[in-house]
């Protein structure tokens, strides 16, 4: 990735030596716009920015390839074009969230804009501190809103639209959590035969967690070595780090089947295990009707811990999100149950162990396997957008300059080129473009996923969590003791559920909003386990027979 960004940067530096418009047109290819349309759109930025020339804006985003491209290439281009100086900082996702929270709590003007996940939407619309973009576009931001912005073209727009119907954030990059596997290994006749002999079914895309575990055990404990290299049947991470929280909250509980049926997150109990009455969070513990300490949650956490320790490379237990993100690209991992597509760029580098001599991937992505409690009608996985977020307290001039930059890095003039570098698509027009379709064979199924109607069943945290930046910390601090063996999975989840209930109670007292939390009275877990829906009672058999499907059939899930 560094090579690509370095090359892009070199080209950009050479280009910036010439006239800014020419430099931009040279860098921002291909585009879904004609050259004349692209030039007109870029010219609009130059004109709109004239009253703001000399302004400096400071923004922050998490460190994934898309944002490095913005910081290293697009920010200097924008500054050259408009005379607005952009300081585009890159930091850890949790640091981004902490700083946003700090700015809201102290009023310190840390940044003029954040690229922050839509996971925080439930907080934004309840706290009334984030600039409502749909209002801004019609009001004080009208003169600096791109006429060709085309909001309907953004595939992630529902994720940044709150239950009140207002737009709070603008998508900048979008990523999903999918199953990833080494198709070339799965196709080897000797491995297929050995797997069939041992497990009685085909080595193909796992449809349930039993099959995933069988395949993990097969590669880690039976095959062990391929072409002279130690290989593993599973990859994950478990370090004591804030990113441990979203490892569990993004995927493991939801795909285990903790929540109720219904999109986007389960109704009335969501995939964080929070029961929501109308729009009011009413509790996370089973005692209050939630499911965070339910049998399905314990099943999810226990599988996560067992598989991490038994099937993943030993060093994975100490890793964080960013450290683990491109490990499978090193070529010794057979499959990964929850793989973030934000790292796709690292998996497509020529010469990589997971790319063949023709530049085609040796891997594929497919829908993630489902846990024992999962039922048809639940969400099929996690996806989210990193989205531009501005605060009401930021001075108008700074808001306007930051909004211009936000639109620049997401404009049609820019987004196709950015998507091809960072592989985090945000616009339907990019996904339907000829260059994207031409790139699709090199991207292992990523483009097919985003173009499929099923992609809507992959959803973010949603609007139920009333204070994501505060509650996200509880996940990793309360659950790591189970990973380290100090507590059982049940004990750790009971602690987490109680901590959530206390937090929801405090948020309910603080937030002045019709959707602020209002806790159910404690009625005991048994009462709620006897009601229909989540929390689901314990299954007699949490390990049904393994089931796999050939890749092409597995993709029918995306029809």
């Amino acid at each position, binding site marked *: 990735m560094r090579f690509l960004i370095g090359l892009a*940067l070199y080209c950009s530096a050479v280009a910036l030596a010439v006239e800014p418009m020419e430099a931009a047109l040279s860098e921002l290819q291909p585009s879904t716009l004609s050259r004349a349309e692209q030039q007109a759109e870029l010219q609009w930025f130059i004109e709109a920015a004239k009253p703001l020339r000399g302004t400096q804006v400071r923004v922050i985003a998490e460190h994934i390839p898309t944002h490095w491209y913005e910081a290293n290439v697009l920010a*200097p281009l924008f500054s050259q074009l408009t005379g607005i100086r952009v300081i585009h900082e890159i930091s850890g996702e949790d640091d981004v969230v902490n*700083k946003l929270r700090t700015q809201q709590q102290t009023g310190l003007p840390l940044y003029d804009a954040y690229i922050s996940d839509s996971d925080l939407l439930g907080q934004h619309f309840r706290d009334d501190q984030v600039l409502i973009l749909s209002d801004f576009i019609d009001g004080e931001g009208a003169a600096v809103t791109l006429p060709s912005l085309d909001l309907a073209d953004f595939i992630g727009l529902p994720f940044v639209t709150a239950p009140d119907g207002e737009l709070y954030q603008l998508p900048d990059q979008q990523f999903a959590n999918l199953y990833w596997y080494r198709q070339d290994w799965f196709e080897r006749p000797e491995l297929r035969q050995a797997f069939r002999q041992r497990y009685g079914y085909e080595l193909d895309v796992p449809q349930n967690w039993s099959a995933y575990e069988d395949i993990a055990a097969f590669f880690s404990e039976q095959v062990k070595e391929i072409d002279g290299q130690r290989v593993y049947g599973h990859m994950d991470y478990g370090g004591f780090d804030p990113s441990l929280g979203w490892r569990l909250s993004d995927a493991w509980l939801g795909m285990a089947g903790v929540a109720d049926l219904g999109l986007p997150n389960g109704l009335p109990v969501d995939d964080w295990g929070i029961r929501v009455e109308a729009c009011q969070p009413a509790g996370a513990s089973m005692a209050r009707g939630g499911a965070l300490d339910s049998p399905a949650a314990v099943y999810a956490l226990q599988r996560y811990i067992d598989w991490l320790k038994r099937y993943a490379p030993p060093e994975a237990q100490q890793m964080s999100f960013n450290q683990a993100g491109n490990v499978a690209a090193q070529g010794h991992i057979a499959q990964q149950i929850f793989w973030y597509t934000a790292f796709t760029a690292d998996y497509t580098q020529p010469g990589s162990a997971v790319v063949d001599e023709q530049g085609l991937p040796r891997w594929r992505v497919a829908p993630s396997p489902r846990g024992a409690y999962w039922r048809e009608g639940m969400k099929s996985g996690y996806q989210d957008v990193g989205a531009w977020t501005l605060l009401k307290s930021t001075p108008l001039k700074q808001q306007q300059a930051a909004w211009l930059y936000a639109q620049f890095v997401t404009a049609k003039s820019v987004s196709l080129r950015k998507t091809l570098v960072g592989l985090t698509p945000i616009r339907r027009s990019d996904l339907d473009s000829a260059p994207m379709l031409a790139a699709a064979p090199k991207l292992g199924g990523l483009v097919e996923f985003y173009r499929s109607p099923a992609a809507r069943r992959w959803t973010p945290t949603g609007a139920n969590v009333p204070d994501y930046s505060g509650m996200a910390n509880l996940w990793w601090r309360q659950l790591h003791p189970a990973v380290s063996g100090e507590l059982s999975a049940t004990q750790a989840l009971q602690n987490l559920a109680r901590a959530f209930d206390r937090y929801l109670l405090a948020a309910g007292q603080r937030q002045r909003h019709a959707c602020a939390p209002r806790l159910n009275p404690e009625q005991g877990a048994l009462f709620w386990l006897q009601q229909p829906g989540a929390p689901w009672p314990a299954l007699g058999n949490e390990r049904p027979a393994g089931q796999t499907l050939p890749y092409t059939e597995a993709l029918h899930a995306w029809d």
Partner: protein
Amino acid sequence: MPGIKSLFGLVLLLCGLPLQAEVRLYAWERPPRVQLSESGEARGLVPELVAELFRRAGASYQLSFLPLQRAMRQVQREPGSCVLLVERRQERDPYYSWIGPLLISRLGLYARAGDDLQLASLEQARGLSILSHQGSGAGEYLSSVGLQVINSNKEALNLSMLQRGRARLWATSATVVSSFNGREPPREVLPFLTLMEEIACHPQFDPQLQQRLQAALHQLYAEDWVAALYARHGLTQE
């Protein structure tokens, strides 16, 4: 038995009070915001802010000075102690209990005044040596993105090395640069990171006291007490 229970509780409470009363704070010198006077007292904006913070939280403390790296190691071993201050980064989060921010550091890459180096991004700093203060978040950050960092124990040494051409760049903040009264101060080439500087306490630091201190700090910001303190010192909050 409720009477006995209450008495027992009171005894426990009274026994507990002195334990909570004294927080050990380890500061490190960084004039003008934290410095040790000739009489051995802590002076500057940060000690004043800390004094008001603890007063409002109803807690007492004992402040002494240690080099930053030593302070960070000491606090991880010593319950009831904190470092004043540590640049907060995600990688450091699990190892301390945090109260802050007390300061905001705007970090940049600085070059010698006479050096005409221009940088539009961190990527362009690849291959250049960058000076940094040992234990600072700046050096750790730049190393983590693959840049070449040279650490030293004192910022004064970094300045000297920069001026003698031992490295093209120095990763530091405008506050540190302005604390050295040279005739030709280094020039900011590229701002790259904002860090929050916070009180970093032992990971098992009393959570109730931590919450009281954090709430008191938010109140100081809400009342513009912090802004007034900066103004008294002739400083800005960035």
